[in-house]
């Protein structure tokens, strides 16, 4: 039986809200069945032994999908009825609780109401007793006998709890008859789909090359089962082909949006004003949901020369959020660029960063790149503010993920190795620099745009797989606009790679308009991707493997 406290603290309307979600799912499953019918119709003329077996198998699965939809549709009415029964009872209970509290009565867990031990109050604080339950509003205040009132409320509250418990048990019994197991629609223990989903997934330290070998060794059944049951793990795993990661990460994105959306609504419906912690969390949710909507919108764009097919390679909400999105397939492109943004880059701000990748892809096409993929890599927690960017901890923390991601691009690329470039902006150059200094990056060229330093005094301090240290100067490109605010912190993480003395390939960018801080400007720091900026043209050339100016 539901206790007084459990019912008092419950939110029975949620059963009604859940009913709608189950109704939606039932409708979606039914629709998928109908869509499946359209595909199966195309096989009607297929004949032969294989055809007979395949069609029988698909028809059985189609029937199971239909049966699932029918069963799922039986769940919402139960939840709706339960909600409709419980909500008015809950309202009545709240009124009784109010009456009890106003009359200094205590309610036990089983609904028994008792007078509280008498405590003398100052005369001015004695509350005016409300009318007895059942009396019309506005009637003269009664002076109820506490024991009589307690008895009356006990009866009412226990009736409420009894009625609520009966409704709860009836609904629970009905729901138990509609589980997948009870209806015979749960997979058998030896179902290939279920057993395949138990296939061991490589650990986090497995190299992307070995992940690729493992993935290629799986049967179609194993691959599909793992995608359905462990999609969140596979979608984030370097070494899994981009097409596969994109498929599953779109589902992860939908799940995260739903989850954050629900948590956001809960915060918004809390009593106002919110605590500072709740408000900060709400702001975080709003930002991340906005970023995910921006990704949704980009994923929905019809591919064109200007906006290539996007591939969602990673999505997450930990820390500032994660978003790795490729414009163009990195596994098939001739030229692949990884764009690492800097300070304030996060899931919340990813919309504009995705646009920059599109622009660089267009610039590369203009420079005659036969096929290009430009990847926005928000795979680390970038410094959230400029003061935070004074610390190198964000760059150090990014090293493993960045290194592994580049290894993954090599592991999943089909055909001859692609020309891989890493383009950092601002603190993103520092993140790349630290990774290339402390280890070695799997890339052909590095591009540093508006860098505060890359933890290197000379090109030979940085390392690219397969590149002789003495040749590193030929594989590093850098630019800083004349009036960029970054000039104020010139040399913060080492010599500016855009200085002629660094020993790399310095390329031109538009100077920008002079600003108010020693002639430098914050706006110029973000103008490298503006139409007409020579930096953008040059980045396109570098991606395409051409010389810059």
């Amino acid at each position, binding site marked *: 039986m539901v206790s007084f406290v459990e019912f008092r603290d419950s939110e029975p309307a949620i059963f009604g809200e859940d009913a709608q979600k189950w109704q*939606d799912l039932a409708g979606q499953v039914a629709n998928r069945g109908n869509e499946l019918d359209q595909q199966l119709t195309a096989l009607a003329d297929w004949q032969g032994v294989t055809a007979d077996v*395949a069609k029988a198998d*698909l028809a059985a699965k189609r029937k199971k999908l239909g049966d699932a939809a029918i069963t799922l549709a039986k769940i919402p009415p139960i939840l709706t009825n339960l909600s409709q029964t419980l909500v008015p009872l809950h309202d009545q209970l709240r009124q009784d609780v109010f009456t009890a509290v106003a009359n200094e009565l205590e309610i036990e867990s089983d609904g028994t109401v008792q007078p509280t031990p008498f405590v003398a109050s100052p005369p001015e604080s004695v509350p005016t007793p409300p009318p007895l339950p059942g009396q019309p509003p506005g009637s003269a205040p009664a002076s109820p006998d506490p024991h009589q009132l307690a008895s009356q409320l006990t009866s009412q509250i226990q009736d409420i709890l009894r009625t609520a418990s009966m409704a*709860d048990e009836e609904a629970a019994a009905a729901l138990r008859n509609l589980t*997948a197991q009870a209806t015979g629609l*749960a997979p058998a223990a030896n179902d290939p789909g279920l057993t395949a989903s138990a296939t061991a997934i490589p650990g986090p330290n497995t190299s992307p090359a070995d992940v690729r070998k493992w993935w290629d060794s799986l049967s179609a059944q194993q691959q599909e*089962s793992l995608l359905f*049951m462990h999609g969140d793990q596979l979608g984030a795993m370097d070494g899994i082909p981009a097409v596969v990661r994109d498929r599953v990460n779109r589902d992860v994105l939908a*799940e995260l949006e*739903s989850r954050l959306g629900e948590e956001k609504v809960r915060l918004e419906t809390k009593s106002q004003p919110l605590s500072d912690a709740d408000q900060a969390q709400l702001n975080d949710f709003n930002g991340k949901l906005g970023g995910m909507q921006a990704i949704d919108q980009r994923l929905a764009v019809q591919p064109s020369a200007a906006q290539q097919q996007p591939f969602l390679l990673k999505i997450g909400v930990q820390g500032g959020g994660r978003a790795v999105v490729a414009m163009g397939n990195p596994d098939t492109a001739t030229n692949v660029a990884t764009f690492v943004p800097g300070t304030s880059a996060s899931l919340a701000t990813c919309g504009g960063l995705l646009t920059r990748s599109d622009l660089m892809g267009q610039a590369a096409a203009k420079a005659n790149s036969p096929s290009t993929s430009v990847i926005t890599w928000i795979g680390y927690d970038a410094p959230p503010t400029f003061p935070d960017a004074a610390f190198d901890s964000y760059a150090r923390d990014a090293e493993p993920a960045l290194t592994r991601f580049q290894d993954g691009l090599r592991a999943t690329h089909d055909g001859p190795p692609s020309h891989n470039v890493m383009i950092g902006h601002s603190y993103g150059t520092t993140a790349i620099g630290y990774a290339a200094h402390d280890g070695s990056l799997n890339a052909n060229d590095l591009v540093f745009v508006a860098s505060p330093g890359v933890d290197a005094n000379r090109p030979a301090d940085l390392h690219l797989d397969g590149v002789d240290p003495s040749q590193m100067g030929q594989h590093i490109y850098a630019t800083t606009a004349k009036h960029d605010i970054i000039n104020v912190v010139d040399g913060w993480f080492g010599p500016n790679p855009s200085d002629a003395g660094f020993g790399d390939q310095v390329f031109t960018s538009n100077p920008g308009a002079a600003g108010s801080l020693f002639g430098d400007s914050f706006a110029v720091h973000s103008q490298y991707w503006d139409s007409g900026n020579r930096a953008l043209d040059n980045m396109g050339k570098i991606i395409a493997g051409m010389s810059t100016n």
Partner: protein
Amino acid sequence: MADGYVVDSATLRKAGDGIVAVTDELHHDISAWAGDQQGATGANQGFSSAQAVADCEAGWEQALSVLGADLAAAGDTLSLNASNYATTEQHIVGRFRPI
């Protein structure tokens, strides 16, 4: 085209890809639903119905996911092997199984 076939491999491949696309949408539906289904259990602890809803959720998420995976695998099998059906029909028979 081998004897007994009235459809070509392109049709088979298209159907296979179509089946996988449908299962991707199903997966999308399940993911969005699963991410949104945490209300009743958390807010209504002590209710038998809340636990029953949670049991339904867990069971149906698994059942639909396995069914979707089975369908996707069947679609993959059609697509990947479409061009070989004419010569390897007997080998492929074993890759489909009654449920």
